[in-house]
């Protein structure tokens, strides 16, 4: 369809207006708000929708308020290869006129309702309503993304291009398959509905059947148990009956043997009495024999112990004496050891003294050297104190000297030089000052003088001539500088105490020498006093060694200026004879340290020997004491045992006498003999009776009867137990019969079979439904991917001209854009910015338009107020896009902002006036 023109008269606020559109390309209809742009779209819809006699309120709405006029709309359009001119007026002077020019030029016209019906038929025949609604964007709807899946022209185009048949014809099947699937399965694939219920019913029936079966199995078990119990009971009854017969036989036999057993019991009783009596007499005899034996044994034992006691006392005494002797020997050795320790101490003292003296000698030499060093330090210090010259002073003197020379040179160059020669005899007197000091007062003959006049020079020949030469003003200045320099030099020389610079240099050299000497002497002093002041150590040693004997001093070396030195030597030479009196060692040389050390070693060996002797003696004493203690203890024990033996002997004698007082020894023997004879007689009688019992089997009969009764009792118990068990089992079986357990089991099996059959049937159907659903869904998904490809390609192609090559889209089942990817970022469309959504919506519509443009069902793309959210750059790109899209179809844009579309190439702008 192409819309060529649209004319409105008395339509809402529009009095009269006609707008012509480009059949191909973009027409931009510009007008301010309320000018009636949207009325154009509304009018086009109404003319096909409502007949001229329509009572719809929508017709009333388009009538200008307060005007009794009939709204009128006329349209020129191409539709299905025909050219239509269609006009309609509602309300007042209603009319409808339709003129159609066929492709071959034939013309047909209708009026009234026929015109409306024909126009409506043609519109619906050639314009797909979904596509029409999709591509017509009403005001405020520009953000809505189109969902064009049901637009037939689009489907036709997509199918033609993708080669995938449209599934539209199969949609009822798809719906039916889904419906069938959802009868058995949830959308997530879980069993549901009757299918799920039947599975539960099967589980419940299985449980019921299993329980019923178990009950029947228990019945079967009870039946087998009862059969077994019956057999067992029959067997026990037989055995019990047989056994009771043998019990009766045993009872008869036992009656016959009971008399013999009574007699035997009587004899046994008498035998027991006689045996007890005999045992009593025998015990009395044994007691008597024991007492006699004790008296004899203790008598002998007491005598032996008395002898042992005397021997032990003697041994103890000897041991005590041995202890005393050992203790005396120990005391001697102790004394010897003390002496040896004293000797060692004296030798140690001697060695120590000799070592102290050697140290004292070394310290004295060191002190002499220290005195000398300190004298050298004092001398050098004195020299250095006197010399006031140092490197700085010498440098200053040299600078002053140079200043004087320099000033003089300048003066010499700046003052008149006067040469005076005496030529004649007349004295020539000179006065004044030259540069170099005083001038000669007079000149001899032919003597000449050359004077540099720095001040005033008077040359006179007395009486004849006086010439005064004065230096100029500059000379005075130069002179003054010379004087200053000289004065400064003098001051420095005075300060240094020298007469000139050379002397100062000599003094400086001496000072360096003295400093070197001082430093070396101080190092020596430091090394000599490194171990402390020798004087202190000397004083300590001197004090330790004690005062010297003056008488012994002669001929001994002395150390000058060192107090106490001499007495040291005296003491060193003094012998200590008494220290070595007790030793068999040679007298050492007075100062022979080695000899003294040897003496000390000998003394220590003697002490060690004494200590060994002492240890031996102590051991001997300990041994002797231990032996003495043991012997004393042994003696005490022997005494105690002897006394105890005496006591026991006395006790035994006393007991024997008491027993004899009751019955003498012979009486005891006679009583025992008599009791023995009585026992033998009764036992003989018992033997006879036992032989009689044995012959009658009396003992076995009683045992057999007791055993038989026990067996009978056990069998009766066994029978009773079996009877009880049988009664219980039969009771249960009777109950199970009353309960009809077999019928219950059969009913449960029947129910299970029924629900299982039902479930199996549902299972087959459910699996079939699932198989169909999954197979169809998979093929639909594959087809969908292929099917959406043409539109997807168009959208991406158009979109890339705006967004660049990374632009991609994905479509859903309704061919609507679901996701967009840009620069690798994929987003759902509802996550895009408003502007991007609007641009995507426009791009999608242009793509749809492009796809259907070649088919019969193409319709104009109409945007009523769009691109309100795009920036300038996007407007430029979108404008270019709209221009390209116009090459394939009719695009109509209604806007109050024409600048949004200024970038649309080849667009026709139509301005609507109010």
């Amino acid at each position, binding site marked *: 369809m192409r819309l060529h023109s649209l004319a409105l008269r008395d339509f809402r606020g529009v009095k009269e207006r006609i707008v012509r559109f480009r059949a191909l390309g973009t027409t931009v209809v510009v007008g301010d708000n309320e000018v009636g742009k949207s009325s154009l779209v509304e009018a086009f819809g109404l003319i096909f929708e409502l007949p001229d006699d329509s009572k719809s309120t929508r017709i009333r709405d388009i009538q200008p308020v307060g005007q009794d006029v009939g709204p009128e709309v006329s349209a020129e359009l191409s539709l299905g290869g025909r050219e239509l001119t269609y006009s309609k007026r509602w309300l007042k002077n209603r009319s409808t006129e339709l003129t159609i020019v066929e492709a071959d030029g034939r013309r047909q016209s209708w009026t009234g309702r026929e015109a409306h019906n024909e126009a409506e038929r043609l519109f619906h025949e050639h314009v797909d309503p979904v596509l029409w609604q999709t591509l017509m964007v009403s005001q405020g709807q520009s953000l809505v993304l189109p969902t064009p899946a049901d637009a037939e022209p689009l489907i036709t185009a997509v199918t033609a291009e993708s080669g995938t048949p449209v599934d539209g014809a199969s949609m009822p099947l798809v719906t039916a398959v889904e419906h069938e699937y959802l009868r058995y399965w949830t959308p997530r694939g879980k069993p549901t509905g009757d299918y799920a219920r039947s599975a539960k019913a099967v589980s419940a029936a299985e449980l019921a059947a299993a329980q019923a079966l178990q009950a029947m199995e228990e019945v079967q078990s009870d039946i087998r148990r009862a059969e077994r119990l019956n057999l067992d009971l029959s067997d026990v009854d037989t055995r019990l009956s047989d056994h009771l017969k043998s019990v009766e036989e045993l009872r008869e036999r036992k009656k016959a043997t009971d008399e013999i057993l009574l007699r035997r019991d009587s004899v046994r009783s008498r035998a027991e009495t006689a045996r007890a009596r005999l045992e009593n007499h025998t015990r009395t005899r044994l007691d008597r024999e024991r007492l006699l034996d004790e008296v004899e044994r203790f008598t002998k034992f007491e005598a032996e112990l008395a002898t042992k006691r005397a021997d032990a006392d003697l041994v103890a005494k000897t041991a005590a004496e041995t202890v005393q002797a050992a203790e005396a020997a120990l005391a001697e050795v102790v004394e010897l050891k003390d002496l040896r320790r004293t000797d060692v101490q004296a030798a140690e003292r001697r060695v120590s003294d000799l070592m102290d003296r050697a140290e004292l000698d070394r310290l004295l030499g060191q002190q002499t050297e220290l005195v000398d060093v300190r004298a050298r330090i004092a001398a050098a210090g004195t020299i250095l104190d006197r010399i006031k010259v140092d490197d700085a002073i010498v440098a200053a003197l040299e600078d002053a000297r140079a200043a004087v020379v320099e000033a003089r040179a300048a003066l010499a160059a700046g003052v008149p030089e006067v040469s005076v020669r005496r030529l004649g005899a007349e004295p020539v007197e000179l006065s004044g000052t030259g540069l170099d000091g005083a001038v000669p007062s007079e000149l001899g003959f032919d003597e000449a003088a050359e004077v540099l006049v720095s001040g005033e020079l008077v040359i006179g020949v007395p009486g004849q001539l006086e010439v005064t030469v004065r230096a100029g003003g500059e000379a005075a200045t130069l002179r003054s500088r010379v004087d200053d320099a000289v004065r400064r030099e003098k001051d420095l020389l005075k300060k240094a105490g020298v007469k000139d610079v050379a002397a100062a240099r000599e003094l400086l050299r001496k000072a360096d020498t003295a400093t070197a000497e001082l430093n070396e002497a101080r190092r020596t002093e430091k090394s000599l006093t490194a171990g402390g002041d020798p004087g202190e150590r000397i004083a300590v040693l001197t004090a330790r060694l004690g005062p010297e004997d003056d008488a012994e001093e002669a001929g001994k070396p002395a150390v000058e200026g060192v107090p106490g030195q001499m007495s040291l030597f005296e003491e060193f030479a003094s012998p200590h004879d008494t220290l070595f009196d007790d030793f068999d060692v040679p007298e050492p040389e007075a100062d022979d340290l080695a000899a003294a050390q040897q003496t000390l070693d000998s003394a220590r060996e003697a002490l060690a020997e004494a200590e060994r002797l002492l240890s031996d003696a102590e051991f001997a004493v300990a041994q002797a004491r231990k032996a003495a203690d043991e012997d004393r203890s042994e003696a005490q024990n022997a005494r105690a045992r002897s006394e105890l033996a005496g006591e026991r002997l006395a006790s035994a004698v006393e007991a024997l006498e008491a027993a004899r007082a009751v019955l003498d020894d012979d009486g005891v023997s006679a009583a025992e003999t008599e009791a023995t004879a009585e026992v033998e007689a009764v036992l003989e009688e018992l033997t006879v009776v036992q032989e009689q019992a044995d012959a009658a089997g009396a003992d076995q009969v009683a045992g057999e009867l007791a055993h038989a009764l026990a067996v009978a009792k056990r069998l009766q118990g066994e029978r009773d137990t079996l009877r009880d068990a049988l009664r219980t089992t039969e009771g249960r079986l009777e109950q199970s019969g009353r309960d009809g357990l077999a019928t219950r089991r059969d009913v449960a*099996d029947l129910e299970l079979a029924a629900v299982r059959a039902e479930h199996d049937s549902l299972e087959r159907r459910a699996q079939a439904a699932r198989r169909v659903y999954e197979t169809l869904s998979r093929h639909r998904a594959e087809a969908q991917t292929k099917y959406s490809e043409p539109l997807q390609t168009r959208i991406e192609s158009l979109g890339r001209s705006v967004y660049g090559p990374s632009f991609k889209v994905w479509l859903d089942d309704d061919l609507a854009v679901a996701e967009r990817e840009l620069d690798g970022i994929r987003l759902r469309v509802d996550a895009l910015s408003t502007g991007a959504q609007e641009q995507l919506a426009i791009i999608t519509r242009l793509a749809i338009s492009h796809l259907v443009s070649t088919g019969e069902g193409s319709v104009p793309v109409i945007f009523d107020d769009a691109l309100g959210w795009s920036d300038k750059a996007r407007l430029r790109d979108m404008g270019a896009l709209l221009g390209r899209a116009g090459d394939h179809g009719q695009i109509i844009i209604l806007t109050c902002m024409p600048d949004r579309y200024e970038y649309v190439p080849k667009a026709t702008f139509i301005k609507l006036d109010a």
Partner: protein
Amino acid sequence: MDESITFLHSSDWQLGMMRRFLGPDGQARWGQARLDAVARIGEVAEQTGAAFVVVTGDVFEHNQVERQTILRACEALKRIPVPVVLLPGNHDALEPGSLWTSSQWQAHAPEHVTVLTETTPFRIAPGVEIVGAPWRSRRPLSDPAAPGYADLAPEPGIVRILLAHGQLTSLSGGMSDVPTIDQTALEAAVADGRLQYVGLGDRHSTTKVTDRIWFSGTQEVTSPEEDAPGNVLKVTIAAGAIEVEPVRVGAWHMVDHRVELFDEESIKALEDWFAELPDKERTYVRLAGDGSLPLPLLSRLDAMIDAQGEVFASVERWAKFWTVRPAPDAADLESLQLSGPARAAMEELRQALAGGDEGAGAALSLMHRLARDAG
């Protein structure tokens, strides 16, 4: 005995039996039919002048049947106007907890009914002795009939009837898991005059073993495998002669039917077969089928069987012998005018079925039906 004696021989009433293939309604009607057949035995007794009725075992399906079954059995027995002798069989053995010794039975058993609990001869009529070999356990250790006649000697002038229950050695094919009845010994006892008739139970088909040895068969069919069920035997013994005549008392049928299905004609033949069967509401059909059918015919077959299932007591595909497969052809698919994914999906299922995928067959049938209904 100078005159002839006529009595009825029946067995294997199996009262309380259930059949899962009948469904709840069929089960109820069939159960009642088994009692009705007992009542008809009473009618036959009256009509034939039978002196008594003997039932050789398995009167009840179990010893633990529900009370209702016992009471209804007693009511049915009351419909028999002559003495009835019942022999405990393997299903209702005289074992501990036996129905026959239960208070329920003893409280309601009609007076003219005697249960053989011993092997001692029982004088039922002048000159007529019944000896029985009741089962005392479900697992007898030896020939279950032998205790009934082993110690007997011929007694001239007395008609002696042995009632026994069990499979004959000659008929069991060696498949029995319990001791069988020694047919040779039985025939010897008949031959030497100790027994004049041997009434046997356990085999549900009426079976003549010899002139004087018979299985009466069940009074009402219990399985399609049974050859001649639903009879009672009218036995007339005269001096030196015997006449045994099966009289039908059953009303139900259980039928196996094998078909080959491959085209519309075979479907039609099956429809005709169903149409010709009598007593549909009292008939159970077990179908064995083989072949392959195009999807429309398969749908038609399914619909037909479903419909017959409503008419008959039960119609069942015999799972073990039902191998009818869908065989979709190109015309089937074309007729649905499917396109796109739907067509591709159906084609995939068709190929899977051709490759032996059984599940694909059911799916294909379903999809065919849905497509047909949706179209």
